[in-house]
């Protein structure tokens, strides 16, 4: 039973694997160029496991920036996970801290989105979410180490690879549109995210848009309820 859920999670996450392998390889190649060994690139993908901040760290390392500022930048980039962790917490009330710790260590934008494409499947089923996240991280680590070892053999800008994760996110976005309110929130969030990304450095726009647009969503919903 537990085992089946893990397997189902793995299956649900296979499209993520398709996206993570090449992007992980791109990371590995860049890490190697910046002077990291394949072991160090792999360790970063195991212990940090956060794409955007890993790429930024590599860029900062190659500019000779010391570890302090890199860690601070990483913290702010990954603050957006607060919102995803809060959302997931609703589905795991009262579970053991050890389980929750394991699940949160592997939380990413992609695995969160796949998990939320069918929330009824993850509710109180840590094994299912664990399956999604485990296979995703394996792909990420395998890609990173592979890229660092023999990355130059593959051109990660070829064959539509740059658009793989974008396509995944588009489909996951469409799956989330379940009622008219969602369509409004999508348009509002789309406009806000572009404005915020333009106005603020880094990726604050995801956290800010998440808070603001979901606030507006609930306001629209309540306004609609009052009319009835």
């Amino acid at each position, binding site marked *: 039973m537990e085992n089946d859920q893990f397997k189902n999670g793995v299956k649900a996450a296979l499209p993520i694997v398709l996206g993570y392998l090449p992007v992980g390889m791109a990371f590995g190649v860049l890490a190697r160029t910046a002077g990291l060994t394949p072991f160090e690139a792999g360790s970063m993908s195991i212990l940090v496991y956060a794409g955007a901040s890993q790429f930024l760290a590599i860029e900062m*390392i190659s500019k000779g920036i010391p570890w302090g500022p890199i*860690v601070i930048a990483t913290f702010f980039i990954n603050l957006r996970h607060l919102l995803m962790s*809060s*959302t997931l*917490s609703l589905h795991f009330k009262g579970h053991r*801290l050890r389980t929750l710790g394991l699940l949160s260590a592997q939380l990413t934008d992609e695995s969160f*989105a796949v998990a939320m494409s069918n929330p009824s499947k993850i509710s109180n089923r840590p094994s299912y979410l664990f399956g999604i996240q485990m296979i995703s991280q394996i792909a990420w680590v395998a890609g990173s180490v592979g890229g660092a070892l023999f990355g130059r053999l593959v051109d990660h800008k070829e064959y539509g690879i740059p658009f793989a994760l974008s396509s995944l996110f588009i489909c996951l976005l469409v799956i989330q549109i379940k009622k008219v309110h969602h369509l409004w929130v999508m348009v509002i969030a*789309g406009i806000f995210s572009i404005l915020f*990304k333009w106005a603020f450095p880094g990726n604050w726009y995801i956290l800010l848009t998440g808070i603001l647009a979901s606030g507006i969503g*609930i306001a629209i919903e309540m306004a609609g309820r009052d009319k009835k």
Partner: protein
Amino acid sequence: MLILILGMGTVTFIPRFLPMAFLTRWGLPKRVKEGLDYIPISILSAIVFPILFFNEEGTVGIRAHYILAAIPVFIFSWKVKSLWGSVLLGMLVYWGLGFVL
């Protein structure tokens, strides 16, 4: 390098773990819970739209290659809710457009 990786790992873990650890134990006000329903759509919109409307230099603009590839993926995802199908279609269209644009 070890300090860097451990440091990055720790600060990444904190925002991933704290809400999960505390909110599964405290209850949340109803309003906030309802608001959390809109988090997935808000975050996904915030990820997708900037991809389409920022070019590589990081300035606002129409990123034609991405938008043209996004349209069929959007329609396909709407009709057939298949992650695999969408990813493969997206890659194929993006790749094909590379020869035309």
